[in-house]
């Protein structure tokens, strides 16, 4: 009887963990099953490398290059903003702040991570965008630059908390050896601690990349929504997640446009999956060192 209970409980935990695989499989299957039928209408090459996205024209154009480039622009912009802010905060919290300062700063960064993206979107639409128009004298404030700023702030907590974990695992004796050689605090940080935690920092950046490239509400509300390759950072773009979110509600289920939106989801999934693999690679490299 007892043996039976043991095995029953054990089996339940196994079954529960199989659900994670089932869910992932379900996600992959659903986007591929609904996305692949598109290629009965459009060649894969044209889908990826054509820049014209006119899904409602007759005949429609399903080229997503400008959407991919839009995604990469805002993501890159977000990382340019988030990397110094996030890594800077991490180094400050881990190496310079007093224990008391650390206990105050860490939870605030964590609270920042919990702010709903739609509220950031509202802020970007109604506050940041009018401000951009006034400051830079540009026709629209909903553009690559605005979206990058807000996305960047959203990525700061990810880079900050993971980099801080990486910095805090650097052994104490490395720091002490550096001090003993006559280096001051700053030199120790820049030449010893940061290089020693390079893998962890890089994996935090990759995770931030994955988060930024897939974030939907902010870019839907702040990136402007024009499917074009921008010639400067003050032009609107239509990144991939925004296209899916904006158009899924208006399309007929089963139409080429419907399948094309799932096709975008496949591309988006592959990009995030690649970023996850690279993250894993950095983490494993750190472990094997």
């Amino acid at each position, binding site marked *: 009887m*007892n043996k039976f209970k*043991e095995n029953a409980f*054990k089996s339940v*935990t*196994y079954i*529960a*963990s199989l*659900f*994670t*695989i089932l*869910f992932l499989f379900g*996600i992959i299957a*659903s*986007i591929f099953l*609904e996305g692949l039928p598109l290629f009965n209408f459009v060649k894969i090459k044209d889908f990826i490398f054509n820049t014209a996205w006119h899904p409602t024209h007759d005949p429609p154009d399903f080229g997503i290059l400008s959407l991919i480039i839009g995604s990469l622009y805002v993501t890159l912009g977000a990382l340019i903003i988030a990397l110094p802010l996030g890594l*800077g*905060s991490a180094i*400050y919290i881990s190496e*310079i702040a007093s224990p008391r300062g650390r*206990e105050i700063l860490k*939870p*605030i960064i*964590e*609270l920042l991570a*919990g*702010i*709903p993206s*739609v*509220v950031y*979107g*509202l*802020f970007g*639409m*109604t*506050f940041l965008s009018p401000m951009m128009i006034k400051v830079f004298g540009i026709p629209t404030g909903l553009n690559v630059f605005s979206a990058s700023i807000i996305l960047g702030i959203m990525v*700061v907590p990810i880079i900050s908390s993971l980099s801080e974990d990486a910095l805090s695992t650097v052994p104490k004796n490395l720091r002490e050896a550096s001090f003993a050689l006559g280096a*001051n*605090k700053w*030199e120790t940080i*820049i030449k010893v601690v940061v290089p020693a935690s390079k893998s962890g920092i890089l994996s935090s950046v990759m*995770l931030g990349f994955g*988060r930024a*490239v*897939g974030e*939907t*509400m902010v870019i839907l*509300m702040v990136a402007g929504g024009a499917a074009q390759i921008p010639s400067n950072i003050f032009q609107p773009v239509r990144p991939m*997640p925004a296209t*899916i*979110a904006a158009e*899924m*509600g208006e399309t007929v*289920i089963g139409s080429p446009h419907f399948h094309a939106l799932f096709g975008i*989801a496949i591309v*988006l*999934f592959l990009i*995030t*999956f690649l970023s996850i693999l690279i*993250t*894993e690679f950095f983490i494993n490299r750190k472990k094997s060192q």
Partner: protein
Amino acid sequence: MNIRKIKAFIGVNVLRLFIAITFIFLLVFLYVIFAKGGKMISWEFLTQSPRRFMTEGGIYPAIVGTFWLTILSIGFALPLGVLTAIFLTSYAKPAWLVRIVRVAINTLAGVPSIIYGLFGLTVFVQLFKFDVSILSGTLTLGVLAMPMIINASEEAIKSVPRDFREASLALGATERQTILRVILPTALPNILTGTIISIGRVAGETAPILFTAATFYTRLRPTSVFDEVMVLPDHIYALMTEGSHAAKQMPIAYGTAVVLLALVLFVSGVAIIIRYKIRKKRKW
């Protein structure tokens, strides 16, 4: 002052500047939201339905919708997540299965929320024929919350000292008894704080329920899990992008944002304080 000292001085202050920029942005952000939305908050706003095409009235149905979606999806994800964490920490065999489960969890954690929305649309709304409903939204959000809850639970279980487990096993308790009576009760407070933080995240998610649960406007309170609902985050988005009275809708959007933000910050704040207290009290 030699050159090394100057470099160090500049470097440390640049770091201070970076952290200050982050906090100034956060303060401006919170100030704008609360200053513009705070004056909308009244008893009527919280307890009444929207009127006149979303230009008047309150957001009560959206509060109710967010409440149910969040509670139900966590109720779905919590048992599955904790059991998976037990598998990963206590049984963890065979190694290849552990590896696959870990890859699945990490990938699920990184999948963009809009893809969760498409998954919910194809599987729950269309395949299972749940339609756009609380049930579809709950399941979609539940799957999204699972990796968060698994990671939090795993951390919590790992922080239980090995001695506890070994002492229990040495007293003749079985593996199952050790897990259920020693390890889980010890890890429970940390599992719960992790769960509360996930509640905050789930309550603010917009994209996954855009096509699976949310509707722009309903006067009715949901009567079953097959009804579609209004929810706070999607209500903000809808007010900013749909309807034809932008000037009248914007203040309501701000008011809704204040309610959502206050809810999420309150919930996460509670979790952070509880965790801080647990850490102080812990004797091992």
